[in-house]
């Protein structure tokens, strides 16, 4: 970010001049090993001079047969596999899978378990958004923000380790509840963290948001209109940054989201900057929700009565709002104790279809910004 003299906000004259001067079309492979593609994403990009004329995503490098494995294992054995789809937000994956089973089998989840799930889900959202903020800023050349974000995330991972025993892949949500209760003094630990985080987020804004280069590289870049966002199945922050007020937590409340009053951050612009702001504001909302959850955490069981004999019959569709978007699980049972079919909806997989839409007409650097703003996790895309 120190080259502020060299980088100018894109003046319309310069870009128009470049566009009119036609050059030979150039085909470039971005990835699968490329620092800004967040894993093994390959972008087949065509360039007309400096301008992207086509950008198509090629995925599948990380495919590891998650859905096939899920058909061959007992249900409780599948839960750790769900962690490994979106490994930056493992709790939401476990949650949606367990919700689908609970829906099929009519398992009742005790209120305390719901609250614990609710708190860890929202903490996970903060952790995921923090890592996104860091890597996104890094994509745009700001190294400091990355280190700051990881400092906070590290504390959050410590909290997760104290609750679940693991830092990233928790295997914590179980059918009918969670694996173990929270530890003594959990409320205070989390509250201390939240207080610090509340002080830190304005620092992030100071560091990145007002920066002239940052704004020049994000505002008006990778624009997705409201209609396109809906047609292309965008979800989560990407959809909400395109001016659609749609959040599964609001319209289809699960856990205890309907008990509290909270806001859904929505921005109408649909560009990279709007996605950035939506995610940053979501962190505040998550802090609010975690506080509500901690205040109302009721006593009781942390896991409900689950029948010893598991029998899945019929089909169920469960969906949650993960930090990346709408994660959903379509589970079909055939009367046995294994899933007959498990289909995973991964928001990043869906979002990658919009790459062409976002990248077209921009520069290579804008394509990097667009990919960064989608917050992709390749483990989830390829499953």
């Amino acid at each position, binding site marked *: 970010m120190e080259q502020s003299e060299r980088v100018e906000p894109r003046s319309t004259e310069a870009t128009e001049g470049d566009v009119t001067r036609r050059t030979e079309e150039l085909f470039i492979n971005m990835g699968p090993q490329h620092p800004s593609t967040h894993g093994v994403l390959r972008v087949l990009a065509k360039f007309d001079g400096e301008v992207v004329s086509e950008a198509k995503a090629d995925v599948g490098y990380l495919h590891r047969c998650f859905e096939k494995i899920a058909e061959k294992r007992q249900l409780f054995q599948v839960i750790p596999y769900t962690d490994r789809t979106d490994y930056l937000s493992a709790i939401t994956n476990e949650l949606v899978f367990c919700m689908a089973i609970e829906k099929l089998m009519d398992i009742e989840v005790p209120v305390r378990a719901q609250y614990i799930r609710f708190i860890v889900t929202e903490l996970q959202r903060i952790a995921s958004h923090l890592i996104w903020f860091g890597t996104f800023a890094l994509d745009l050349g700001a190294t400091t923000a990355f280190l700051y974000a990881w400092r906070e995330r590290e504390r959050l991972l410590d909290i997760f380790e104290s609750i679940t025993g693991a830092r990233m892949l928790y295997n914590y949500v179980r059918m009918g509840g969670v694996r173990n209760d929270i530890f003594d003094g959990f409320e205070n630990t989390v509250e201390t963290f939240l207080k610090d985080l509340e002080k830190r987020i304005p620092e992030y804004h100071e560091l990145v948001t007002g920066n002239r280069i940052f704004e020049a590289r994000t505002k008006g870049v990778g624009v997705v209109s409201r209609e396109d966002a809906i047609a292309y199945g965008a979800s989560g922050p990407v959809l909400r940054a395109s001016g659609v007020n749609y959040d599964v937590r609001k319209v289809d409340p699960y856990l205890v989201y309907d008990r509290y009053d909270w806001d859904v951050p929505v921005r109408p612009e649909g560009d990279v900057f709007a996605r950035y702001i939506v995610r940053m504001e979501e962190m505040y909302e998550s802090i609010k929700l975690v506080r509500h959850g901690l205040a109302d955490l009721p006593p009781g069981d942390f896991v409900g009565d689950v029948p010893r004999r598991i029998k899945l019959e019929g089909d169920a569709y469960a969906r949650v709002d993960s930090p990346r978007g*709408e994660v959903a699980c379509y589970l079909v049972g055939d009367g046995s104790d294994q899933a007959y079919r498990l289909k995973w909806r991964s928001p990043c997989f869906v979002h990658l279809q919009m790459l062409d839409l976002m990248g077209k007409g921009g520069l290579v650097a804008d394509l990097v910004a667009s990919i960064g703003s989608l917050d992709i996790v390749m483990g989830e895309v390829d499953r």
Partner: protein
Amino acid sequence: MGVAHVADEEKLNEQQSENGTESATDESTQAETERPLPPLIRSVIDAVKREYPSLDPQARDDDWVEVYVDREQWHDVALGLRDKLGFDYLSLLSGVDYQENGFQVVYHLIAIDSNKKIVVKVNAPERDEPTVPSIMDVWPTANFHEREAWDMFGIRFSGHPDLRRILMREDWEGHPLRKDYVDDRVPRERQTRETYAEAQSLLNRQRSEGINH
């Protein structure tokens, strides 16, 4: 079904009382149509029946409406669902292999503004080349989903402009999520205590003989 998720005592009681009245009306009228449905589900069923009298939408016990559509009319119905009934958002497209009953493609559709929800199921009974019309021109998001269903099940989506494998390698043979798919690769030898000890003793022997790796 909703009971499992709400687990809110008040709502539980409400639900139970509703169930109570339900069974009472059932006994008195003996007609399924009299069952009180939530207004949103009722409106979806009515709208689908009005537009397509040949279809038979059913309320599921979660808050979705389920409808089976013949694949011959599916593309037209899809356009109608989007333009007339407002289902503008395709949440998920999944293929399912029901073995002797053929394949099924399941579409989960949502209306963003009103949160109406419908599950459309389209059957394709052939074993070797099941074909379903592509709805990529209706909901562009179906592109990757249809490619995945082709990749995993070999379901052909007629009208899809670029139906290639997406997750598996291009030269992969067969469609892995089919129930009759046989993985004929040679299984990897599993390491046990014995094989490990064997390998170690071999290594030690080689070391003592001065062979370095």
